[in-house]
């Protein structure tokens, strides 16, 4: 989990998201619908964006997980993706934000220079009720451009 190994005994029925939030105290990951539609609970499992409300904690045994708390930049400051969301105000209430960041992170890993349509398709599984997505899409575009310049 974000580079740290945890050994915990859990009930088989415990959802991964409840394990993260309650057992590990990582409340950055949020619960929105508990049936895999809203994407608020998106985390990275071995680098791939997954719904932590649709997984049991025990299914994560032996895998590498990353949440918003593990998204800091190499210097310990904010990650360029977070920086881009801040610069473009891709946030309002902040509830969908961690899931949105993890989905965007997953997208940019696979496709470092996505088109606007590709961004919208990749984020279509993450619902936001505040922004109308415009500033979120712009944030991801900006992050991709920044990374492109950095390369």
């Amino acid at each position, binding site marked *: 989990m974000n580079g740290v190994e945890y050994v915990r005994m859990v*009930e088989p*029925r*415990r959802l991964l998201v*409840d394990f993260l*939030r*309650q057992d590990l*105290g*990582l*409340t*950055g*990951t*949020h*619960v*929105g*619908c*508990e*049936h895999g*539609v*809203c994407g*608020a609970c998106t985390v990275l499992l071995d680098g791939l964006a997954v719904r932590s409300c649709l997984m049991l904690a025990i299914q994560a045994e032996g895998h590498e997980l990353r*949440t*918003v*708390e593990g*998204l*800091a930049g190499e210097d310990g400051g*904010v990650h360029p993706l*977070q920086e881009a*969301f*801040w*610069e*473009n*105000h891709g*946030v*309002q*209430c*902040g*509830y*969908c*934000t*961690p899931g949105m*960041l993890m989905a965007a992170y997953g997208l940019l890993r696979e496709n470092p220079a996505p088109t*606007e349509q590709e*961004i*919208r*398709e990749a*984020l*279509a*599984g*993450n*619902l*936001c*009720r*505040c*922004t*109308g*997505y*415009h*500033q*979120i*899409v712009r944030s991801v575009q900006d992050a991709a451009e920044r990374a492109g310049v950095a390369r």
Partner: protein
Amino acid sequence: MNLAKQSFQYVSRKLRPREDYRFLTGKGRFAGDLVLPKMVHVALVGSTHAHARLLSVDVSRALAHPGVVAAVTGEDLRRDTNPIPNYLETPTIREYPLAVDKVRYVGEWVAAIIATDRYVAEDAAELVDVEYDPLPAVIDAEKAIKPDSPLVHEGEGSNVAWHRRFVWGPVEEDFAGADVVIRQRFRWRRHSGVPIETFAVSAEWDEGTSLLNVWASIQMPQFEEQLAHALRLPVNSIRVFHDVDVGGSYGTKRGIKHSILVGYLARLSARPVQLVEDRLEYMRGGGAHGPDRVFYAELAASREGLIKSFRLKTIDDNGAFPGRSPMQMGKPLGAIVGPYRINSVEYEGVAVTTNKTPQIAFRGFGQSPTNFVLERMVDRLSKEVKVERIELRRRNYIHPEEFPYAIPSGTTYDSGDYPEVLRKALESADFPALLRFQAEARERGRLIGIGVSGCVEPGGGNAMFLSLLNPKNEVTTFPEGVLVKIDATGTVSAQISFSSAGQSHETMIAMIVGEQLGVHPDKIRVLHADSLSGLPTQTPVASRMAIVAGTAAYHAAGKLKAKMVRIAAHNLRIPEDDLEYRQGKVICRSNPKVEMGWDQLVRIAHKQFHRLPISEEPGLQAIHVQQVPSGGKLPTDDGRVHMYPCYSFSVHIPVVEVDPETGLVKILRYYVAHDCGTVINPDVVDGMVIGGIGHGIGAALYEEFVYDEETGQFLSQSLMDYLLPSALEIPPVELTAHCTPSPLTPLGQKGVGEGGYMTAPAAVASAVEDALSGLGVTITELPMTPDRVFRLLESAQTHKGV
């Protein structure tokens, strides 16, 4: 006058909202994140019937389940709490957090369990035995007002909770003298804010201090007053923390019954209690649905299309308990003529109870549906009098030189330039090019439509509808208090007294205080005081925070500037009127070389009483409690009243394509011009406008709480049944701003939180109707789901004999 050109140091300039940082790093503090020692968790048992007598609720098996701490039913609440206050004061309607005697909607809570763990609480909830005696249900408001309808509350003798007719001006004469009269029925179906965070509340009873501490994801005026009343506690025994981040609200996060229940359970169990709704509970039993209306509209006009009079009857389905929701029929009266010069208005409102989940406040407080009706009627008039719809709007718009403009229902609009905003929208869309695109696409058989709709957006929350709908409310004060202080080391902080749900209030307050004091906003701390240490507030409803809290912050900081000038005058022995506060210093106007700097002023104020003017208090702190600018008078007997102070305006131009095979509507492009006066933070304003459009597109095309007409069963229980638009459904939005400052606020700011949602449903409906214009179809019902559009297409083809 154009204040936008006035050069501000911070206001209207780009500044990254400070709140964003904690949200982006996973450090938000949401109500469901809170962990308290020995905390227990609530699970709820919801009614499986829309309407039934409760014969028995037996919690004994649940209580015996290991880990269960307590289990309660409506009888416990009836004995130990007062009913939830209801703004209409209907005599026999008694709502408790858990059902008493009857259940009145599917999902209504009948029992609550607290246990050491939510999983255990839910296991135990399945062990509660409930015996129901089903009754016939009514879920259609027009059927509910008929004499033979089942009664939701027998004691009332009727399902009509409120009914009143207002006539403002010579309606009869204007209709009699009109060349053209149009009549149309409309249906606005039930949807709501549906935030990604459900409602969450935690409470602990501190026995040592007799204080109930509450952390809730609320956005609600009078929350602690209602909680105290229900729990039979003095208000100063309840402390509501407002430094809780609310994960989206849009008016709907009220949760009063949740909070009463949790407060009750916390005292009962002597342990901290947390309730986090699951998605099903939010959708079904949370009581957070929005307006659900049938309209009968009539418009009288001249042959040239000049509108004379408007008649509107609204039948609003409040669901099982009319809490604050009937008030949502009142706010639209503050802008009932929209942007148009209309001489007279008749408005009839009927609030109806049915066997649906209770309705609550939602973005725009009832005005989005009214604007949908008015704009649809103007489109119909355009066809009737054969005056092109844009030209027709221009002919009827209030002219910029007519402001301040009094409308028939008693409200005065502060300022605006509607023709100019319309012109900017058309220009931004390159309207002639759009028409060419549409014509070419149509030749190839594509159903392309262009919508044009405007909306006047009241802001400022002068909630005079409270007294209008129920004279016993007699309330004219809607205050907002802000404290600004400069501490002994010279750092600045400000305090607001409400929680925020994504509106970036901390940034807004910091920018205004920073502008006044000449201090960079990023150096100003903004805190959310709790309900006991805070100042009077009406909370962030009705797009009021830039207007009322912003003005309070402006004046509180202004008081500090004035005090620093007094301190400098005393010490420099220069008259106050020869001194001026500028950028953290006090400077002598007649001799600018003479000045007193920030550090010295702060030191004198905090540490050197011997250098303070006589009768001056030590320190640098100032409170300003701001009443809503303008208004403050009760309604007249015929129901005329001045409501909100500031009036924003926007015009939306969506371009849509309808798939004739499936009825699916796709939005291709979206153009907006809007005017909310002086913008405080441009990125925040853009986000509010586009986010509101997101809700409006949902309302227009996707979102609907569906009930089975026979059984009253609720069919939209999950986000798979209730469709929220994603990044693929909401198109990129092209925004153009205009600025007509408000004369009522110190910076010229107006409200902006609701206009996107108020305008978009009308605009998208107008676009879909335009796409189907060859078929003679009139859009009168939302949402325009593929099914509904397909049926419209079918009936049009049947009529044409195709």
